[in-house]
């Protein structure tokens, strides 16, 4: 991988970590976006997009209410997409999804640590012991820590991918078609969770069926 690609993907990891909670929340941090942009940097946007979409299906059903601890799939999707592009085919997609989900757990643990760090940074604020002007510096420090966290997960993941791609090449045991079937079957579970969170039981069944039938028609006979 070119040094420029490392630089761009590291910067994307930092942006994704910042955008996830701390700064903006424009959803640049979604795996669909980070996966696709990684694909663009590595010359295969379609694989990056598809990998990002699979990671979305796996994570969309989890709603970040209050202080709930969740995985952080945004920065994780960068090395995951790199693995999918590097290996290619359904094998790359399956292993990329697995790596993305595992790294998202690491990222999620990092978010917990970040929140604890923030707690220490604002200690004494409610009691008036920390001055308002000092808070600007603490906020900058928190953002720096957040960005560093994103860079660390991304670059460590990319280093792992670069080492493992040659070793994994040709090792995936299942044929292309079966791999897709198994991967989609496994992802059907979080998709069910997502369906439940989207709508109540009465409207859900009819809408799912309608969408499924229209989609199947498009899938079989092509999109006009």
């Amino acid at each position, binding site marked *: 991988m070119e040094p420029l690609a490392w630089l761009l993907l590291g910067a994307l990891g930092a942006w994704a970590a910042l955008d996830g909670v701390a*700064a*903006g*929340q*424009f*959803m640049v941090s979604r795996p*669909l*976006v980070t996966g*696709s942009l990684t*694909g*663009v940097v590595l010359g295969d*946007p379609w694989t990056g997009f598809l990998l990002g979409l699979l990671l979305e299906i*796996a994570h*969309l059903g989890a*709603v970040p*209410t*209050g*202080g709930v601890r969740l995985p952080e799939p945004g920065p994780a999707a960068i090395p995951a997409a790199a693995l999918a592009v590097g290996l290619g085919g359904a094998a790359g997609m*399956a*292993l990329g*999804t*697995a*790596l993305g989900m595992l790294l*998202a757990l690491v990222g999620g643990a990092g978010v917990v640590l970040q*929140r604890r760090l*923030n707690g220490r940074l*604002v200690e004494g*604020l*409610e009691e008036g012991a920390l001055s*308002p002007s000092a*808070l600007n510096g603490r*906020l900058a420090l928190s*953002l720096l820590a*957040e960005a560093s966290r994103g860079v660390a997960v991304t670059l460590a993941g990319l280093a792992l991918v670069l080492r493992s791609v040659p070793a994994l090449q040709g*090792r*995936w*045991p*299942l044929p292309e078609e079966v791999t897709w*079937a198994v991967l989609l*079957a*496994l992802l*059907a579970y979080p*998709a*069910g*969770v997502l369906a*439940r*969170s*989207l709508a109540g039981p009465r*409207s859900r069944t009819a*809408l*799912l069926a*309608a*969408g*499924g039938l*229209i*989609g*199947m028609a*498009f*899938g*079989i006979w092509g*999109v006009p």
Partner: protein
Amino acid sequence: VTELRLILRLLLVQALWNYRTLLGAGLAWVLAPSLRELAGREEDRFKEAFRRHAEHFNAHPYLAGVAAGSLARLERDGEGEETFRRFRDALRGPLGSLGDGLIWAAWLPACVLASGVAGLAGAPPLWAVVGFLVAYNLLHLTLRWWGVSIGLAFGKGVGAPLARSGLQRWAERVGWVGVLLLGLLAGVTFGRGFAASGLPTSADVVGTATILGLLLFGLGLWRGRAAWGWTPVMLPVAILGVLVVGAFA
């Protein structure tokens, strides 16, 4: 000027999110310039107001502007400590649940799924992603601006425009669109598979996986979020399990 400054600062309202005060420290940071303006050269008044707003608080980040705008207005109106406390307590629950229901549980999934459908239908991936970001942020930024505006305009009476906005009803409708898009995405995926390799039967692996997928989908649908907890661990373990078993087989 106050409105724009609040909106811009609100982009970092969660930067100091922590388990003790949740959004409190961020909210105080957002309000600081407004408080400074009101206090003028009275340093003690400024510090006291700042400390007051740094206390425990939570809301959906996109609707935190409702709280920030209202609190800035209440400060301007010279309300007392007790009013602030009661007002913050009263606002916390609705601003969290309204935002979570509309944005995290409906708008975000619907936008992602729409982008996925567009990509699978043949749109260039980058365009599908740009479309997602534009559509999503249209509502996101509107909500931030609207929240600050009604907060500053209505102050203590902000509950009325919030109730009139019908955000809950919108969340329900967007959820319907989301579930339709999920069905569409699944349909396109299966349809393409059938078109490429014919209808799977229970005798082949793809057919068995399809049945397994339908069962797992039903299980997820039945159990909902309560069962999501182990998904991030079990799913990659299952994929890696296939690799390991296959390597030894």
